[in-house]
C-alpha cells in the first residue's frame, strides 16, 4: 500500500464515506469516555427504564442510566476489542500462513491441511468453542474471536504466498541461498501486502459484529463493563418499553461494521482495478436506415454500408466496421480475409445479427433472402434465420455449453424451430453427427463437449448448422484453433457440406491459403472496410497495394528461405484512431495527397473492385500459395 493508493481510495465516494465514518468513530472512541464516562455511569433511581425524553434522548436503562451516553461511551470499548481480536487473527494467520513456506515440505503440508480443516467450520462455531476454552468475559472473547478468525486469514496468506512463491525473483533469491525466514520477510510478505491489508480491514468489521454477537449472548463483555453488544442485549429485554435502547446500539454496530467493510472495498478497488466501461446505446450515432429491396433474387445475403460502433472511453464511438457492402449469392463461397483487427469477425457477427449487447449496428440495407433484418425484433429475426443461417465459430473448445450434452445441444435447434419431439430431434442430431464423420454418433451424442477432441467439436458444430437446411453458412475462422492435420479435415467437411446442401458459405480467415483453396471470390478487409474484391483465379492481378503485399507475404514451398519473409511495414491503425482518408495510406508506398480522401470501391477489372486511388496494373511479384498449393 503506497501513499497514493490510500489517497485515491479516499477520493472514491465509497472510500470517502467509509473514511469519514471511521474518523468519526475514532474521535468518539477517544473523547467520549473522557467527556461522558462518568455521566454514563450515573444512576437515576427516579427515572428507571424510561422512554425517550428531553432529558434522556434515548431513554434510560433499568438502573436509570442514560442510554445515548452509554452508546457513545461504549464506542471505545467496542472498537478496541474488535481491533484487538483482529490483530490476534492477523498475527496468528500470518504465522500459520507463512509456516508452510518456512518449514519443510511435509510439515508445511500438515499446516496447510489443518488450516483447511478449520476453515470448513464457520467462525462463529469456532468462536463458541474458544469461548469455552478461554472463559467467559471480554478477555476470553477477544482471544476466542481472534483465534476463530485466524484460519481464514491463514488460508488467505497461504494462497497469496503460494502465488508469489513461483515468481522469478523469489526463485532467484532461493538460488542465491537466502534463508527461508529472510525469504518470507523480505520477498514474500511485502509482495502480498495489499490483499492482506484489504482483508484485515474487512475482518475488523467482521470481528466487530462477532464481538457484538458474543456480548449480546452474554458470553462477551460482562457487567459492569459494557460494549454495544451488551447494551443491545439489555435493550432487547425492554424493547416494548423503549425500542431505542435496543436499536441505538444496533445502529452503532451496523455503521461501524459497514465502515470497515466499505473501507476494505474502497482499498480493494484502488489496488486491483476492475471496472467495466459500458454505456447504453440510447444515443446510437448512426440512424438505422432501411432501403427498398432491389429485387436481387439470386442473393442470399445483401449488406450495404454496414457499420458497427462501440461506445469508447470518453464520449466518442469506435467503429471497427465502417461501411462494408457485401452480396453473397446462392451457393457461392466467399472468403473474407484481413489482418486481426480488420473487423472481419465483427462483420460476420453483424451480418448474423449476433453482435455484443453494447454494439450499435446500422446499414442502409441488410437483407437475408430478400427479408430485411434490421429494425426487427429478436423473435422475428430468429424465425427468419433459425433454420436457414448456420454459424461456425472460431474456438470449438469454448463454443459449446460445457454442462449440456452434445446431442441435446444439436437437438434443441430442431426442437425450437421445427417443433420436433425430444426423441425425433435427438435422432436427427445423431444422424447429423454421423454425417460430419463423428464415429459412434449414438454414444457421442450422449457425451459432454469436454469428452470431444477439438476437431470433433468443430465437426459437431458444423453438424449443428446442418440440423435444418441452411441457405448460408458463416464460418468465422473455423480452423484457426485447430492443429494443421485437423484443419484439413474440417475444411474438406465444410466443402462437402456445401456441395451436398447447396448452401452459400462465407468463410472468414486470416489465412489466404485456406481461403483461396475454398472460395470462389475473395473479399479483403482493412481497418473496418473492404479494400478489394476479386475472383480467386485473379489473385495475381490484385490491384490494391494492401492486397498485393498481403498475398505477396504468404510463403510457400518455392519461397527463398535465405531471404527474410516479406512483411508489411507498420501496423494496422487502431479503430479508435483511424486516419481520415485511405486507412492504408500511412503504410503504402504509392500514397500521395489524394489518399487523404477516402476512396470508394470501384471496378478495376473483370468482376474485380478495389478501393484505391492508385490501383496497380502489373502482376503481383511473388506467387501466392493459392496458385501453387494443391486444392483440398
Amino acid at each position: 500500500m503506497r501513499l497514493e493508493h490510500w489517497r485515491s481510495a479516499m477520493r472514491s465516494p465509497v472510500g470517502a464515506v467509509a473514511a469519514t465514518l471511521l474518523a468519526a468513530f475514532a474521535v468518539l472512541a477517544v473523547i467520549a469516555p473522557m467527556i461522558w464516562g462518568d455521566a454514563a455511569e450515573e444512576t437515576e433511581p427516579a427515572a428507571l427504564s424510561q422512554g425517550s425524553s428531553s432529558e434522556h434522548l434515548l431513554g434510560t436503562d433499568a438502573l436509570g442510566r442514560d442510554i445515548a451516553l452509554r452508546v457513545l461511551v461504549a464506542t471505545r470499548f467496542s472498537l478496541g476489542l474488535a481491533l484487538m481480536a483482529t490483530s490476534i487473527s492477523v498475527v496468528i494467520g500470518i504465522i500459520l500462513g507463512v509456516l508452510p513456506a518456512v518449514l519443510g515440505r511435509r510439515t508445511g503440508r500438515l499446516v496447510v491441511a489443518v488450516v483447511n480443516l478449520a476453515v470448513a467450520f464457520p467462525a462463529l462455531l469456532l468462536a463458541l468453542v474458544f469461548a469455552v476454552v478461554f472463559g467467559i468475559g471480554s478477555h476470553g472473547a477477544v482471544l476466542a474471536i481472534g483465534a476463530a478468525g485466524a484460519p481464514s486469514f491463514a488460508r488467505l496468506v497461504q494462497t497469496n504466498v503460494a502465488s508469489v512463491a513461483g515468481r522469478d525473483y523469489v526463485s532467484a533469491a532461493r538460488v542465491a541461498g537466502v534463508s527461508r525466514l529472510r525469504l518470507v520477510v523480505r520477498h514474500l510478505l511485502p509482495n502480498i501486502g495489499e490483499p492482506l491489508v484489504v482483508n484485515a480491514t474487512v475482518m475488523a468489521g467482521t470481528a466487530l459484529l462477532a464481538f457484538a454477537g458474543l456480548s449480546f449472548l452474554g458470553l462477551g463483555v460482562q457487567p459492569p463493563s459494557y460494549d454495544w453488544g451488551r447494551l443491545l442485549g439489555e435493550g432487547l429485554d425492554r424493547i416494548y418499553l423503549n425500542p431505542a435502547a435496543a436499536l441505538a446500539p444496533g445502529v452503532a454496530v451496523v455503521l461501524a461494521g459497514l465502515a470497515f467493510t466499505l473501507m476494505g472495498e474502497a482499498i480493494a478497488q484502488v489496488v486491483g482495478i476492475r471496472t467495466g466501461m459500458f454505456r447504453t446505446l440510447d444515443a446510437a450515432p448512426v440512424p438505422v436506415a432501411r432501403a427498398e429491396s432491389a429485387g436481387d433474387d439470386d442473393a442470399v445475403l445483401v449488406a450495404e454500408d454496414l457499420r458497427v460502433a462501440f461506445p469508447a472511453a470518453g464520449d466518442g464511438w469506435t467503429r471497427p466496421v465502417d461501411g462494408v457492402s457485401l452480396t453473397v449469392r446462392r451457393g457461392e463461397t466467399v472468403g473474407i480475409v484481413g489482418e486481426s483487427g480488420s473487423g472481419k469477425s465483427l462483420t460476420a457477427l453483424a451480418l448474423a445479427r449476433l453482435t455484443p449487447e453494447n454494439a450499435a449496428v446500422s446499414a442502409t440495407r441488410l437483407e437475408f433472402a430478400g427479408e430485411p433484418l434490421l429494425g426487427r425484433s429478436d423473435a422475428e429475426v430468429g424465425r427468419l434465420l433459425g433454420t436457414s443461417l448456420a454459424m461456425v465459430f472460431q474456438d470449438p473448445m469454448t463454443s459449446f455449453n460445457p454442462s449440456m450434452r452434445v446431442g441435446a445441444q444439436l437437438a434443441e435447434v430442431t426442437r425450437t424451430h421445427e417443433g420436433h419431439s425430444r426423441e425425433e430431434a435427438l435422432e436427427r442430431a445423431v444422424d447429423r453427427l454421423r454425417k460430419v464423420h463423428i464415429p459412434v454418433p449414438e454414444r457421442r451424442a450422449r457425451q459432454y463437449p469436454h469428452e470431444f477432441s477439438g476437431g470433433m467439436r468443430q465437426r459437431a458444430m458444423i453438424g449443428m448448422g446442418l440440423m435444418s437446411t441452411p441457405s448460408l453458412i458463416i464460418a468465422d475462422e473455423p480452423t484457426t484453433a485447430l492443429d494443421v492435420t485437423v484443419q484439413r479435415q474440417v475444411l474438406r467437411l465444410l466443402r462437402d457440406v456445401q456441395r451436398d446442401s447447396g448452401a452459400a458459405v462465407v468463410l472468414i480467415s486470416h489465412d489466404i491459403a485456406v481461403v483461396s483453396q475454398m472460395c470462389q471470390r475473395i473479399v479483403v478487409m482493412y481497418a473496418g472496410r473492404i479494400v478489394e474484391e476479386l475472383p480467386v483465379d485473379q489473385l495475381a492481378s490484385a490491384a490494391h497495394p494492401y492486397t498485393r503485399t498481403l498475398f505477396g507475404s504468404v510463403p510457400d514451398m518455392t519461397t527463398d528461405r535465405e531471404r527474410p519473409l516479406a512483411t508489411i511495414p507498420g501496423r494496422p491503425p487502431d479503430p479508435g484512431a483511424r486516419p481520415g482518408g485511405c486507412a492504408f495510406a500511412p503504410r503504402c508506398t504509392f500514397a500521395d495527397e489524394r489518399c487523404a480522401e477516402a476512396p470508394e470501391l470501384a471496378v478495376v477489372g473483370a468482376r474485380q473492385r478495389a478501393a484505391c486511388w492508385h490501383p496497380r496494373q502489373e502482376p503481383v511479384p511473388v506467387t501466392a500459395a493459392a496458385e501453387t498449393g494443391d486444392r483440398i
Partner: protein
Amino acid sequence: MTTASAPLTTARGEAALGRVSWVRNPWVVFLARRLGRLLVSVAFLVTLAFLMIHLIPGDPVRAALGISAPPELVAARQESLGLNDPIVVQYVNYVKALFSGDLGVSMTSGVAVSETIGQRLPASAGLAAGAFTVVMIVSIPLGLCMAVLTRGGRRRGTELGFTSTSAVVAAIPEFLLAVGLVFVFGVTLGWLPVAGRDGLSSYILPVLALSLGPALLMARIVRVEALSVLEQDFVRTARAKRLPHWRVYLRHVFPNALTSTLTIGGLLLSAMIVGTVLVENVFAWPGMGMTIVQSILSKDYPLVQGIVLVYGVAVLLVNLLVDLMLAVVDPRSTIREA
C-alpha cells in the same frame, strides 16, 4: 437424475470398450476421496470437541462447580467424567462412547446429552431448513433477473440500486436484523409473534432474519456469475441457434453459473446453521442455540461438547452435499479432480 446418470453411462460405454476399469472410473475415485476427506474432518471435529475441555486452564470441574464446592463433590464429578485417567485413555473412551451414540451426561441436569439434543434439534433444523429454502427461492430468480436486466451495462440505475441495497442489507448481521424485525413487525405493527416457537407464524420473523442477508448476497453472486457466463462463446452459439431468450438463460446461462453459486451457497448455508444460535437467542427459540449458550454460561461442558459436535457434523454434511451437487452439475470438475 438424468444429469447424474450421464457420466456413469459414459463410463459404462468406455468400460464396454474394455480399457477403463472401475478403479479408474472418475466417479469412484471422486467419491472415495471425498469420503476420506469427510472422515478426516470428522476426526478433526471430534478431537477439537474433546480437547475443548482439556484446554481450559485449571480444573474444569472446579470452574463449573465454583470455588465453594466441597472437595468430595469435585472429586466425584472428576471421577464420573473420567478426568483422572491418562489423556490418551480418556480420548479413546470418548471416541468409543461416541460410536455407541453416547455423548455423556449433562453436568447440571443429569439428563443424557443425546436426549437433550434430540429434543432441541428439530426446532433448530426447522429454522435452518426454512431459511435455506427462502434463500434459494429468492436469490436465484432475483439474481438471474438482475443479470438479464443489467446485461451489457444496461440500466445503470437499477444495477446501482440493487448492488448497494443488497450490500448494505447483507452487511447487517442476522441478530441485528432480527432486532430490527422484532421492532417493526412485533413492537410497532404487532403483526407477528416475537418470541417462542408456536405455530407457523412464529417461524416468519426468525426465518426472515436468518435468510434476508444470505438471500441478497447470493442474488449478487448469481448476478455476477450469470453476467460472466453471458460473455462466453457458447452463449453466442446459443444465440446463433436463435433459441428463445428464456431457453438461452435457463438452459445455457444458469447451469453454468451454478458452480460458483453452489460453492458460495454451501458456505452461506453452513454459516446460517451456526447463525441460528444468535437468532434463536433473539426470539427465545427453543432450539440448540439457546441450549448451547445456556450451557456455556453454566459451564455444562458435556452438553457444550455434544452440541458443538452436532453443529460441526451438520456443517460437514452440507459441505459434502455441495461437493456432490457440484460434481453432478459440472462433470468436468469431478474428472479434473480425479
